[in-house]
C-alpha cells in the first residue's frame, strides 16, 4: 500500500473516499476516483513515464490534456492491450494496468538511450539519406536496428474481445467542449427548446474551470459550474455526452465523435460496447474546444519535471497533486503568473519566476515578494540539469549573466494556441493574429461558430460572453424563438498580455521542438540549410508534427523556428492545417459491429433450410450462402459427391436452387424497345411465351452481363441477370431509362427476392414436373418446347412460372414459385422425383455441367472480355443501336490475336488443371512476353473422366488441336494441354431437346 506522497491533504476534485489501486510497470499504486492515470502517477511521485521515440530519453508529463506527447503508455494487458494511450486522458479505474513504452530492459535503465550519445545518426532526413545507401545496408543493418530502437507501443496480439457500436444522432445545436464557453452556449441554446448535444472529451465537465481558481458572479467558479450543469440536466432536449471526443467535421453539418463508453472500467459491463462511434447531424454547431498551451524550445526542455504551466495548475487545483516541491516558473506572458499564486496557495515553494519580458507588472512583483519568489525579468531558462528528473536550471538574464537554480518543477508558459482543429477540417486555413501571436480560425465551415479560447479570446469573461451569444444565435438560426438575452456573468480580473519567445539558443544539449517524434531545433536548422523551407517539406523531412499527437504542442514552434531561419514573419512562412481525426480514433469505433461474420449481411436463399436438411455444404458467394454440394455418407470425398450429382443429373434428374439470379420485371409499351437498346440482340421479335438468351455490354464495349429474358405478355418481360451483377444491372437499367431515354414507356422493378427458382435438369425432368404442375397445363415437348416460358400453376393453384431453359445442356426447366413456397416446392419435387432417383445438386456440380457445355459465367464475363472474345460476335445485331455498340468496334477490341474463348484438356489424362494458369508455348520460357492467355474455369468431368477447362487464348479458335502449356506459377503447376472447342459434351445439343 503506497501513500501518494505528493497528494495534497485537501482540495481538488478527486474523491478521497474512493481509493483505486492500479499497476504501472508491474508496481502497485493507489489513486482516487477522479484521477487520471497521469495525476495518480504524479501523486505517487512517479515522474518518469516513458522513453522517447528516437533517443530513448527519459520523459515525464508535459501536459494534463489531449496534447500530451510524452506520457504514452500501453494500457491493459493481453487481448485488451492498447498502445500509445495518453496517460493524461486515461480515467483511473480499479485494477488498471499500464506499461511504459520504448524502454529496454526497463524504464529506469534503458540500453538504447545510447542513441542520445550517437545522436547525429538520427538527425533530420536520416531515413531519406539512409535510403540512398546500398540497399543491403538498409535491410540488414539499419532497419532491424531502428525497428528495435524506435517505434511506439505494441498492438495487442489477439483479437479484441470487446465490441464497438456505431450510432447516429440529430440535433439543432451541437456544442463541442464543455468549458465555460461551451456550457454557456449549451445553456442559452437549450433554454430555447432546441435539441442540443454537448460533448466533452473529459469525464468531468467544466474544461479549464476545473483547473483554475476563478470567480464568476463574485463566487467560486465551481458554484456557477454546478448551477449550470444542474440546469442543463433539467432541460429535456439537452443531451450531455462526457467522455466523447468530436474528432472530425464533415460536409453539411456532419460531425464524427467517439464516446468512450467503457474505457473507464477494466472490462465493459455486459451488453455495453467499449466505444461508440457517433455520426452527429447538426443544424448548427458551436466550437468551444478551448486552447492548448505552448511550450518553449530550450536545451533540456524534455526532462521530466518540465511541464506546461497550465498543466501544473490542473494537477494542483483539480487533482490535488503537487507536481514538485520547489518550482520555477518560466513565462513569456501574464498567464504563467497564475501558477505562482496557485502553487503558493497549496504551500509549494516557488523559488523563482523567469519572465522573458523586461517589464513586470506591479501586481506580479508584489505577488512574487509575497510568496518569496525571486524575479528574473528579461531573462530566459537556458538549460536544465538532471538525469531522470529535473534537479535545476540555468537562468540567463539580458546581460548574459547566468544563475543556477535548484528546482524539481519548471512550469513553462508561452501563451496559448486556440484549439481550432475542426475549423480546418473543411480546408479552412487558420490566420495569424499578430495581437495574440497565434493562429485563429479563418473562414468558418457553414453552420459553425467558434466561442472563447478556441477563437483566440482567452479570458474567462470572453468565454462566457461568446458562449451565451453564440448559443443563442445558433438556436435562433436553427429556427427557435429566443427570449431576451440575459447579461453574461461577470468574472474576477484576468491579465492576458503576452510576448512569446519561441526558442532559447543554448550552448549545448538537445532542445526539442517535437517531443513525441524527437525533433530538435537543430533538425529544423538542418532542414532549412538543406533547402526544405516550405512547411510541408519541413514536416516530411524532419517528421515534425507527424506523430500521433499531430504536433499539437510543436507545429507552431517549428513554424516559428523556420521563420527565424528564413528571416520571414511567421505568417509568411506558412500555416498549420489539420485533418481529422483531432485525436486518435480506434478503428473498432469506426467499424462498429461490422467485423468478422458481421462485416456484411448474409443472404439466405428461400430454400436454405431445406438444403440444410439435405446436408448441404454452403459456400459464400457475394452476400449469398449457396449450397455447394450435398455429401452423402457413401461418398468418398468432395469430388465423388460432385461426380455423383453430375452423373445423377445427366443420367436421370437433379434439382438445384437458382433463386439468387437477379430477376427484373419490365413492363410498358416500350419494354421491347428498351430491351433492344440494352441488349446486343433482337427482342421485338421474341414471341409471347418464349425466353431468349441476352447479352448486354457496358457503353465502353465490354461485356457487362448475360441471362435469359422471357416475354410473359405483349408489354411484359422478365429479365434474369447473373447473381453477382443483379444490383449493378438494375442500376444500369434505371440509368438507361431515367437518364438516357426517359421518354420510353417502361417501368421496372427487381423481383429477385419475390421468387424462389429451381433448376430441374436431366432426361427425367419433365416426368418429375408432371407430378407437381397442375394438370390443366400441357408441358409436353410439343406444347412446351425448348425456350418456352409461361405463367402456370403448381400444387393445385399456386402461381408459378415455368421456363424451359438449360444451363446444364440437359432437357431442363427452371420453375419459379412465390418465395414463401420455396421449401414446399423442393419437397414436392423430391417426392415427385423419388421414382426417378432425383438428386439435389449444388454449385459445384452446376459448374462442372456448364463447363462441359462451354457456358460462360462471371469468370469469363470478367469485365475485360468482349462479345468477340466469348465467340458470340454473331449475336450482335447490326440493325439497331444498343449500349456499347460503337465502342465494341474499336480497333483493339476486334484484333484477331485477342485472347478468345477456347476449351482445353490435359494431354496426360491423369493430370488435373488449375484455374488462373497462363498459356505459354511448349518450349517457351515462363515470361510475361510469352504469355498467350489465361485459364478461367476448370473442372473434373465425370462424363469424360478427365479434367477440362475454359480459357482465353490468343487467336484461340484457329488453334484447335494445338498443344500448349498451362503454367500456374502461384501454385507451381505446369500441364501440357490440347486446345479444343469449349463445348466438351453433346456437341449437337440433342439432349436439350429431348
Amino acid at each position, binding site marked *: 500500500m503506497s501513500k501518494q506522497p505528493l497528494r495534497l491533504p485537501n482540495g481538488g476534485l478527486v474523491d478521497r473516499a474512493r481509493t483505486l489501486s492500479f499497476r504501472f510497470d508491474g508496481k502497485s499504486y493507489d489513486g482516487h476516483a477522479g484521477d487520471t492515470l497521469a495525476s495518480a502517477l504524479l501523486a505517487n511521485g512517479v515522474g518518469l513515464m516513458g522513453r522517447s521515440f528516437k533517443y530513448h530519453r527519459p520523459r515525464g508529463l508535459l501536459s494534463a490534456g489531449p496534447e500530451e506527447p510524452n506520457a504514452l503508455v500501453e494500457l491493459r494487458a493481453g487481448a485488451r492491450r492498447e498502445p500509445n494511450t495518453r496517460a493524461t486522458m486515461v480515467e483511473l479505474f480499479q485494477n488498471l494496468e499500464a506499461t511504459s513504452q520504448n524502454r529496454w530492459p526497463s524504464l529506469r535503465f534503458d540500453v538504447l538511450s545510447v542513441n542520445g550519445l550517437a545522436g547525429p545518426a538520427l538527425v533530420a532526413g536520416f531515413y531519406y539519406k539512409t535510403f540512398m545507401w546500398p540497399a543491403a545496408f538498409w535491410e540488414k543493418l539499419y532497419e532491424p536496428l531502428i525497428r528495435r530502437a524506435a517505434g511506439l507501443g505494441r498492438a495487442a496480439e489477439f483479437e479484441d474481445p470487446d465490441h464497438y457500436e456505431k450510432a447516429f444522432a440529430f440535433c439543432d445545436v451541437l456544442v463541442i467542449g464543455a468549458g465555460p464557453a461551451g456550457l454557456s452556449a449549451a445553456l442559452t441554446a437549450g433554454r430555447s427548446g432546441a435539441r442540443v448535444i454537448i460533448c466533452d472529451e473529459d469525464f468531468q465537465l467544466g474544461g479549464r474551470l476545473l483547473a483554475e481558481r476563478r470567480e464568476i458572479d463574485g463566487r467560486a467558479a465551481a458554484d456557477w459550474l454546478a448551477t449550470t450543469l444542474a440546469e442543463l440536466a433539467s432541460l429535456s432536449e439537452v443531451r450531455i455526452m462526457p467522455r466523447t471526443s468530436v474528432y472530425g467535421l464533415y*460536409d453539411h453539418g456532419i460531425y464524427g465523435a467517439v464516446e468512450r463508453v467503457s474505457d473507464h472500467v477494466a472490462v465493459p459491463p455486459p451488453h455495453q460496447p467499449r466505444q461508440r462511434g457517433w455520426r452527429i447531424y447538426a443544424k448548427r454547431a458551436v466550437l468551444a474546444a478551448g486552447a492548448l498551451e505552448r511550450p518553449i524550445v530550450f536545451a533540456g526542455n524534455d526532462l521530466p519535471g518540465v511541464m506546461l504551466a497550465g498543466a501544473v495548475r490542473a494537477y494542483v487545483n483539480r487533482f490535488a497533486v503537487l507536481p514538485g516541491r520547489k518550482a520555477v516558473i518560466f513565462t513569456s506572458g501574464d498567464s504563467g503568473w497564475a501558477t505562482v499564486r496557485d502553487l503558493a496557495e497549496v504551500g509549494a515553494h516557488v523559488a523563482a519566476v523567469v519572465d522573458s519580458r523586461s517589464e513586470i507588472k506591479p501586481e506580479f512583483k508584489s505577488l512574487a515578494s509575497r510568496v518569496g519568489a525571486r524575479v528574473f525579468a528579461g531573462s530566459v531558462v537556458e538549460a536544465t540539469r538532471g538525469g531522470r528528473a529535473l534537479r535545476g536550471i540555468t537562468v540567463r538574464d539580458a546581460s548574459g549573466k547566468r544563475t543556477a537554480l535548484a528546482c524539481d518543477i519548471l512550469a513553462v508558459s508561452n501563451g496559448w494556441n486556440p484549439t481550432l482543429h475542426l475549423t480546418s477540417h473543411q480546408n479552412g486555413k487558420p490566420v495569424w493574429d499578430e495581437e495574440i501571436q497565434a493562429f485563429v480560425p479563418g473562414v468558418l465551415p457553414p453552420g459553425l461558430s467558434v466561442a472563447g479560447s478556441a477563437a483566440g479570446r482567452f479570458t474567462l469573461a470572453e468565454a462566457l460572453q461568446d458562449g451565451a451569444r453564440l448559443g443563442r444565435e445558433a438556436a435562433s438560426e436553427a429556427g427557435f424563438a429566443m427570449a431576451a438575452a440575459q447579461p453574461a456573468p461577470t468574472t474576477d480580473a484576468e491579465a492576458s498580455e503576452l510576448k512569446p519567445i519561441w526558442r532559447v539558443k543554448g550552448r549545448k544539449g538537445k532542445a526539442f521542438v517535437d517531443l513525441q517524434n524527437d525533433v530538435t531545433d537543430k533538425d529544423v536548422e538542418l532542414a532549412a540549410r538543406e533547402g526544405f523551407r516550405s512547411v510541408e517539406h519541413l514536416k516530411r523531412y524532419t517528421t515534425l508534427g507527424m506523430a500521433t499527437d499531430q504536433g499539437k504542442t510543436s507545429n507552431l514552434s517549428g513554424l516559428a523556428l523556420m521563420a527565424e531561419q528564413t528571416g520571414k514573419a511567421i505568417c509568411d512562412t506558412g500555416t498549420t492545417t489539420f485533418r481529422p481525426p483531432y485525436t486518435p480514433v480506434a478503428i473498432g469505433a469506426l467499424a462498429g459491429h461490422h467485423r468478422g461474420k458481421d462485416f456484411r449481411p448474409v443472404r439466405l436463399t428461400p430454400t436454405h433450410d431445406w438444403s440444410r436438411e439435405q446436408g448441404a455444404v454452403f459456400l459464400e458467394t457475394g452476400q449469398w450462402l449457396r449450397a455447394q454440394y450435398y455429401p452423402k455418407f457413401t461418398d468418398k470425398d468432395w469430388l465423388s459427391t460432385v461426380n455423383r450429382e453430375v452423373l445423377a443429373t445427366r443420367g436421370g434428374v437433379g434439382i438445384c436452387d437458382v433463386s439468387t439470379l437477379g430477376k427484373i420485371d419490365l413492363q410498358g409499351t416500350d419494354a421491347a424497345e428498351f430491351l433492344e437498346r440494352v441488349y446486343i440482340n433482337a427482342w421485338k421479335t421474341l414471341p409471347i411465351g418464349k425466353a431468349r438468351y441476352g447479352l448486354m455490354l457496358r457503353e465502353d464495349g465490354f461485356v457487362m452481363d448475360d441471362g435469359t429474358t422471357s416475354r410473359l405478355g405483349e408489354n411484359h418481360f422478365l429479365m434474369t441477370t447473373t447473381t453477382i451483377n443483379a444490383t449493378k444491372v*438494375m*442500376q444500369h437499367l434505371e440509368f438507361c431509362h*431515367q*437518364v438516357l431515354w426517359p421518354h420510353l414507356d417502361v417501368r421496372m422493378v427487381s423481383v429477385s427476392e419475390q421468387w424462389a427458382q429451381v433448376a430441374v435438369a436431366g432426361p427425367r425432368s419433365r416426368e418429375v414436373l408432371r407430378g407437381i404442375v397442375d394438370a390443366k397445363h400441357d408441358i409436353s415437348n410439343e406444347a412446351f418446347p425448348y425456350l418456352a416460358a409461361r405463367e402456370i400453376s403448381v400444387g393445385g393453384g399456386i402461381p408459378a412460372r415455368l421456363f424451359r431453359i438449360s444451363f446444364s445442356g440437359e432437357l431442363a426447366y427452371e420453375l419459379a414459385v412465390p418465395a414463401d413456397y420455396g421449401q414446399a416446392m423442393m419437397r414436392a419435387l423430391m417426392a415427385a422425383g423419388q421414382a426417378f432417383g432425383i438428386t439435389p445438386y449444388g454449385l459445384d456440380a452446376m459448374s462442372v455441367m456448364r463447363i462441359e457445355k462451354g457456358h460462360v459465367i462471371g469468370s469469363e464475363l470478367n469485365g475485360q472480355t468482349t462479345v468477340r472474345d466469348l465467340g458470340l460476335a454473331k449475336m450482335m445485331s447490326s440493325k439497331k443501336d444498343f449500349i456499347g455498340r460503337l465502342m465494341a468496334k474499336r480497333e483493339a477490341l476486334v484484333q484477331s490475336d485477342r485472347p478468345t474463348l477456347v476449351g482445353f484438356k490435359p494431354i496426360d489424362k491423369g493430370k488435373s488443371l488449375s484455374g488462373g494458369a497462363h498459356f505459354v508455348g511448349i518450349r517457351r520460357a515462363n515470361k510475361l512476353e510469352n504469355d498467350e492467355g489465361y485459364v478461367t474455369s476448370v473442372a473434373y468431368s465425370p462424363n469424360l473422366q478427365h479434367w477440362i477447362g475454359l480459357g482465353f487464348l490468343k487467336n484461340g479458335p484457329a488453334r484447335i488441336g494445338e498443344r500448349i502449356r498451362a503454367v500456374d506459377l502461384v501454385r507451381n503447376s505446369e500441364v501440357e494441354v490440347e486446345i479444343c472447342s469449349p463445348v466438351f459434351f453433346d456437341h449437337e445439343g440433342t439432349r436439350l431437346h429431348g
Partner: protein
Amino acid sequence: MRIACPHCGLRDLQEFTYLGDASPSRPDGLAATESAMFDYVYLRENPRGLLEELWFHNAGCRAWLAVCRDTLTHTIQSVVPANKRKKGAAA
C-alpha cells in the same frame, strides 16, 4: 455529405452512388459516330465550382438525380430527378 432527395428528403451520402458529370448526352442511333461516342464515354471536364452531376439513390427510391454541386465547397445548389431536369442547369 447529405443530399436532399426530392422523393426521400435529406439523406446521408452512404445511400447514394456517384456517377459523375451529367452534361454529356449519349449520341443515340445508328447514325452516331465513333468519335462522338468516344467523347461521350471518356471525355469529362473537371471543373472547379458548380457541376451538375448524376447520383443514384440506390438505398432509397432508386431515382437517378441531377445534383448541382460545387466541387470546391460541396455546397449543393439543387437536386432534381434526372428525368425531369433541364440540361445545362449548372451553366
